[in-house]
């Protein structure tokens, strides 16, 4: 089981009179992930706090603040049970066969169709598609191709915090060959969609160190992101190109959507306030199964 504590702190230059926010901070209930406990705390005390589905089946929180405030703290905690990563190399079906125009989602699965088209931050890009085609050679088994693609992304692009912003379109990331986990995910998705596959953006967390506690993961102390690709009968397979991992029991899924713009962990606006500073801290730890029994 994994436990995450995610704090988002805004500090305003001046007092803000009102604030409105949306947050995608509750782990998604889905195959491979069971939510044991989740909580969300907002300071100052919000009004109208409520949650609903966001149209992709993710939990969307909404809240308002109607008093003068110069800081906003959003703190979420969650405990989830995760299943280990599947063995992708066992999927030997030629990848082209999964490029169906007739995906029928299994009940409970997010329908894949929507994720084969470009989205606000991921426009189609012929060069990225050509890059993806180097891994997806004709007739190659899907698992094999995906692992090669993921490995290639990890090797060919630089993980470089600060190189991009949350709104950097994928074409710019391609040009600069560098970015953060979100950019890696967008790149990967652009290539897969270009090949005719359904690929989604996954927002979440990764364990700060892998279970052996030897290799630090990138993005472990912040929100993390990766991608998922749809395989009929198997559902959504997730890979983390930033860390060259198949997603399993070291990751926690918050939300799945077309790209970052659909599911930022926290977004909002405030009246007044001037400029603001943002601090984010995330910690993810492994906890024993029985640690939560009582």
């Amino acid at each position, binding site marked *: 089981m994994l436990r995450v504590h995610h704090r988002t702190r805004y500090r305003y230059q001046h007092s803000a009179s009102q604030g409105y926010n949306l947050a995608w901070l509750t782990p998604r209930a889905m195959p491979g992930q069971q939510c044991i406990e989740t909580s969300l705390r907002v300071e100052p005390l919000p009004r109208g706090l*409520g949650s609903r589905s966001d149209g992709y089946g993710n939990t969307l929180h909404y809240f*308002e603040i109607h008093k003068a405030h110069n800081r906003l703290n959003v703190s979420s905690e969650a405990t989830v049970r995760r299943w280990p990563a599947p063995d992708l190399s066992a999927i030997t079906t030629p990848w082209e066969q999964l490029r169906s125009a007739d995906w029928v989602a299994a009940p409970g699965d997010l329908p894949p169709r929507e994720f084969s088209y470009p989205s606000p931050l991921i426009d189609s890009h012929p060069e990225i598609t050509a890059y993806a085609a180097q891994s997806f050679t004709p007739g190659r088994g899907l698992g094999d191709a995906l692992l090669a693609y993921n490995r290639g992304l990890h090797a060919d692009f630089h993980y470089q915090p600060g190189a991009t912003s949350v709104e950097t379109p994928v074409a710019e990331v391609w040009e600069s060959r560098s970015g953060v986990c979100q950019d890696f995910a967008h790149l990967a998705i652009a290539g897969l969609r270009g090949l005719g596959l359904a690929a989604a953006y996954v927002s979440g967390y990764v364990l700060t160190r892998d279970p052996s506690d030897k290799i630090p993961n990138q993005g472990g102390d912040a929100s993390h992101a990766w991608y998922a690709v749809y395989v009929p009968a198997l559902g959504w397979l997730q890979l983390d190109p930033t860390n060259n991992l198949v997603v399993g029991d070291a990751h926690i899924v918050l939300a799945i959507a077309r790209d970052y713009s659909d599911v930022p962990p926290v977004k909002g606006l405030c009246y007044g306030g001037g400029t603001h500073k943002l601090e984010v801290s995330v910690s993810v730890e492994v906890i024993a199964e029985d640690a939560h029994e009582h």
Partner: protein
Amino acid sequence: MPLELTRPAATGTQLLPGYLPMAGAYDEMVDANGRVRPHWEAFASFLDERAPGALAAVQREALRRLKEQGVHYHVYDDPEGMRRPWQLDPLPLLLAETDWQPLEAGLAQRARLFSLLLQDLYGPQRMLREKLLPYELIYRHPEFLRLARNTAMSPLTLFASDMARGPDGQWWVLSDRAQGPSGAGYVLEARMITKRVLGASLSDYAIAPLAQFFSHFKRHLATLAPDASREPTIALLSSGIGNEVYFEHAYMAAQLGITLVQGDDLTVRQGKVYLKTVDDLRQVDVLIRRVDSSYCDPLALRAESMLGVPGLLQAQALGKVGMANPIGSGILECPALLPFLPGLAKALLGEELLLPNVATWWCGQPKELAHVLERLPALVIKRTDRAGGVVFADQLSKAALERLRATIRAEPWNYLGQERVSFSTAPTLAGGGGALEPRNLILRTFLAGNGEHYDVMPGGLTRVAPSTGTLLVSSQGGSWSKDTWVLRERGSMRDALRLHPAGQRRTAPAVLTSRAAENLFWSARYLERCEALLRLVRSYMGSLELYNDYGYQEDTQVLSQLLPLLRAYAPADTDTDAATHADTVWDYPQLNRLLLARELPGSLVSNLHRALDGAYTVRDLWPVDSWRALEEIEALVEYAEKNRSVVLLEQVLQRMLNAVLAFWGAAQESLALTQGGLWLHLGRRIERVHGMLSNTAAFCEQLPGGDDPARALEALLDANSCVVSHRRRYGSELSLATVWLHLLLEPTNPRSLLSQLEGFGNLLRYLNPTPLQGLSEAQRRLLGITTPLQLASVKDWNTAEECRERLAPLLRQLAEQLAQLGSNLEHRYFQHTQPFTQLG
């Protein structure tokens, strides 16, 4: 139509020899044999009896009325000004009831279909899963709003379709409007004006009335209210005076008796929508949405939108506000939906689609793409998101055609091709001169309903092409509008005349928004400033004429006394023109500039424009006569700006003053204090007092020692409308003492400063609902201004020196206190929404 074709024309001769229908087009009035269709006969004789001259007069009268009533349609990028008069052709389109009834049934079916489609697309998406609609069309369309998916999506309340009639007499649907269809208000206005200018002969026609449709509309709106236990508060959400059809927003709000609001008049609290009034927050139950979906909520949708309300989508999603039409309904306006409607009608309604669509091919499908590319020059090309308008492919050069082909091939899902339809024609006067010309027309029809049942407006808004033979009809492109008469059989009129259907639910009265109060207050202040300036200039010009005619030195003294007062209106003016002339006297060029230089802050026209802009923002509140007076002022401003001659200047000044006074008179008579009158009067009073304080102070500061200032004092009295009353009170006596007594302190002179302050105090009482708890802050501040004047004695201001050293500083100080009182009022009662910033 069978009726028309089988019945022989009554006269058998050619009526209207001057009217020649276009070859190949269906003419609404004249059939293929040149005979007038039966339902047009009476109207055709009416036209026939009138010489072109009389018809030209009818048209002029229609345009005059439109202007007078302030009916506008904005044309973007039109340097001629934001508010261009709407173009109405006074000859209606006539439709026989037999012709209309099948349309009614077909339109009602269409509205039900689109309403169900909306709920399916944002809900179960059965139409996508059953392949009746391609996924790609919906998922790649920018108006499919993900955050509205799986939320409470109410049915469509208002729906509109644009239709045209082909050469065989068959009506075709060209496109549909389901976000916030515009035009229904213009229909009302078109009906009113058309009936007025065509005159009494109309009693011969059984024209289906419109009123019932609007009461149906309001009834359907009321049923959207989430809480059925109280009278719903309904508001119309407008994007403001920059919108092309702002006139209609205001007109609809006034007609329906609801509140006109803009985004920052509203606030969402705990998922409910509230309206900011001067006193408190009032919950809004139903919104007529005239802001496009994606601009409605800067939190959940387009972050850069300044037109929306943060949290509005949440309110809709939780069902806490009724939205007509729901945020997200823009997807229904995608023109590529048309070819799928027959299948959708079968699946969603179990019915055959009654009204045919214009043939449409969505390029997102291979076969259709090939078809469009092959027949490109014969088609009309549109984008699925309706951006970029309509392309008539046959008008493109060969190179442009190839570029279009390449664009479509690169992004086929974004494009669709439509068959070019030959629209029917109707006689119009649009060409001017009273001659009848056939013009191609399209008809926008309107429906109001609840998802299951829709009421169709009998008739609609007919729009005709800007010139003969043009097919492009859009309001932006300069089309003319027409009223549309559905001519009922005699027997069916009784039902239609029952105005209010049984079971009409009462709705809460419209409320005054804080924004409206603020605009009234400032409009009044600017208008009062204009009035004071007009009087001052009139006084000044009187002396200037005397000086020019006789050259007496004492007239220059009067002029130099008044000059600082004039200068104070535009203190920032450093224009060399104004400065070259000796400091002591201004001549006509400088006056002209102070009055007519629009770019000069503080000039008469710039103040008038600010007053008019404010007034236009609260267009829905004005009684008819007040609005006419405003239009008169605007017309005079335009006239004066175009004709800058001295002689005209004098005439125009007086007429402007008259118009301003007519405005105040009408507003006083008919704008209730609770409906905004209070803020208008507060603004006028505070501005007048402020003007008197600063003008009198400037006058005192300028007083020279020694000379007898009698002539200048008289001019000051004149600028304050006090010459006659002073003379009646003091006879020929005129001194500093009598003038100060009369102008400042005399309680029996209604124009005196103290009387004005007293009037202001009376108004402030309305703002203090709990007088038992003592004076409000504004009242206390006012006391601080009134008391020193009440305690003052004119004996202290007997000489020019005393005036300069005692009176002037006192008046300046009081003016400063008054300005503080004003900002205190603004701060307390007007919602100054801070700008918001997105959190990154």
